[in-house]
């Protein structure tokens, strides 16, 4: 079963690749900052629009757009981009948002 061997090889390659990517994420994680905006993202169309644009802002490492909570969460590299810039990019897409600040735990 040559085909089976090829398939197994690909599966292993994908697994290794994803695991190493995971490991890299973990190493770099502490340097990044997070911010959540509340914005009027009320339909999948809005979400699709955000998902298509926001990941490509320089310095953005991760994005979660939630229709249910009407929020946009960013993980970003503060040396490359600022909160204000992210807010402005969101507004430019048509979703002006307010930053949600969570209470610090005492």
């Amino acid at each position: 079963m040559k085909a089976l061997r090829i398939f197994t090889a690909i599966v292993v390659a994908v697994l290794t690749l994803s695991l190493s990517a995971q490991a890299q994420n973990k190493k770099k994680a502490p340097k990044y900052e997070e911010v959540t905006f509340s914005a009027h993202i009320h339909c999948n169309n809005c979400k699709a629009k955000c998902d298509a644009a926001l990941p490509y802002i320089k310095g953005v490492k991760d994005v979660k757009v939630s229709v249910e909570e009407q929020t946009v969460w960013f993980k970003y590299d503060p040396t490359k981009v600022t909160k204000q810039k992210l807010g402005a990019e969101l507004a430019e897409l048509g979703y002006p948002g307010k930053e949600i600040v969570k209470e610090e735990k005492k």
Partner: protein
Amino acid sequence: MKKSILLFVYLLVAVFATAQDFKGKVFFVNADGEKEPAGFATVICVETRQTAEADIDGNFEFKKIKGENVTMIASFIGYTRDTLLYRPGITYHEFNLHDENELNALVVTGRQDANYLSKTAAIRTEVITAAGLCKMACCNLAESFENSASVSVGYSDAVSGAKQIKLLGLSGTYVQMLDENKPIMRGLASPFGLSYIPGQWLESIQIAKGPSSVINGLEGLTGLINMEHRKPTAENPLFVNLFMSDELMFEGNIASSLQLNDKWSTVIMAHASAGTKDHDMNKDGFKDEPLKQHFNFDNRWLYNAGPDGVQVRFGVKAFSDERIGGQMAYEKGMNDHGPYEGYKNNIWGSEINNSGIDGYLKVGIPFTEGGVESLAMVATYSYYNMDASYGTKYYKGYQNMAYINAMYQNQNDENHHYTFGIAGQYDGIHEDFREMVIDFDKYSARVYNGGGELFKGRDDKMIGVYGEYTYTNEKLTAVIGLRGDYHSQGGWVFGPRANVKYSFTDDLIVRVTGGRGLRHANIIADNLGLLSSGRHIFVEEEIKMEDAWTFGGNITQYFKWGESENSYLSFDYFRSSFNSQLVVDWDKDYITGSNKNNVYVYNCDGRSFTDTYQVDLSVEPFKGFTAIATFRYTKAKVEMDGQGLVDRPLMSKYKGVLNIQYATNLNKWTFDVTGQLNGPAPLPQFMGGGESEVYPMFFAQVTKKFKGLDIYVGVENIGNYIQENAILINNGDGLQGIKPGDNAFDNSFNASMVWGPLMGRKFYGGIRLTLWKK
């Protein structure tokens, strides 16, 4: 000192505040920004599971909130939610709910899963989303099912390139195809229909197993496949897709969604594809796939008068397709002067020209807020023309079909909904079938028309009435429907259908379904393989309406594991059993020892049934890595004349699919690998009986996303598995695979015994360019 007093006062206020009640008010905000109280809106505290209902003036209160950081969400059906992150100290808040533009939009949070099982639908529904459609090149609808074990896709024959699907161990002709809930691909349009829906035009596909609603008719015996196209309201003024494979197959798609003002919007979609080079990898002298030229155009409009106003949708679609198949030496036009010409040159060829145009109009009129009471109407018209020659057989057909469906929906209260409707349908199918019988001694040909006047098409007018009642509460959804259709050919037929869903918990869902389906059979269109054989087609009797009952159930357990809260394990069982079915019998002459070598078509008077079992598992063990494993087992039996109850020929007994995907952060890179294990299919007796080989298939694709641009490359059929001897012939020394030089005009010629892939390993690449509205 000052500071500490301030701090003291602050603390006092804070303590005092936490002891206080929380009060709030909920408003509806319309498009102009005007507010009005949202009476009876629901407010929930997510973490503490407290709920409250607003009074008629929109006011509500919580006596005590049992947490410090609480997400408080106000909602009302048909409106957007509004969220407050509650902290001690907040005593009052106003919530604003906005009109939701798309009432029926599925609300999905987090990353879009590629394939999933719907939690809300009462019918077992598998959804292939846009993300799933991008997992493979998915040039057309037929190819988008490669990740699914529920649906298997195969070739109708080894000549025409037509693909057919199978669901629940039965041919795809028993599945009702819907385009945004309008019936499509009926009659002559069914054999090639799947190829005429470009995958890149689609937003999602829903596969529902078992008899579903009676609203769209009774023609779906085993299930229903609905496809959603790109929407006029999508904010994509331009989408371009280009695709190319190593076999010089090209494809281009372009789509544009334009919002002209706040009421009118439109989407325009165009497709062109061509297979420009013929090849013969298995060296049998025949083109592996026909040369193709396909053009397709679709324009859809939406008029939306506002959140509670009239909605009108209409559109038009046109396409043309040309295919040239057969022996390598066959060139376009050779069959034009009759097959005798082809015979004289000893070149077997096939030419297929299909074209069609259709239009539709949909109107929805809501009478009350949120469309609870509403009237909806769908009307469609389609024209389809098929002109095909296969060696010695000629088939020309055209059809005019019209359909209208009007329904009224209302509810007694939130738990009891009902729908009543009336529908009309006209099927005008004209067929002209001829077969040349070549006299090998006299070098002459005469026309033989197979089964006499039985290929006379159909002129059927139908009028139907139906009612459907839906009961819903928190745990239970029951949909019960009854429909009666009067056919000018066939008289009255009745079909009851029921679907029940019960959620034991939020994560454990059980569904039970049952009902009847009925349809007119189309001898040639449902069995296109009849044309690509040298046998005479012999229709033994008037074909009755096909009539089957399908019962089944599904258990789905969702669970949290790894990264996903919606991992699931699901088990299905379905049984379809026919009262009457059209049977194509290739073995009758073999069994009786007759030397006629005909293929027989008749009504199955005995038993015909299928049992299908399926298990699905979907997990996301760590971020970005998803795995979907599914396995289907089918037992399909049919009683044939003189043979008793036999396994249904060419129906594979099982299929396993494993799809794994890894997407890097932000989905910038996506890696997809799919493996299939295709089980054996019983072979007809004349081929020696037994079963076909078990074969694996592997697919892989890598997608890189840039802003507004996706680039993908992939390989299909990595193992290069090809069915051997897909075209059979007996030139005196037994039935075997055809070779160059064999006389393809012999009546033992048979290209319709296809159970496996006909195309070897294929490399491809493409781009998708998407512009977003500013």
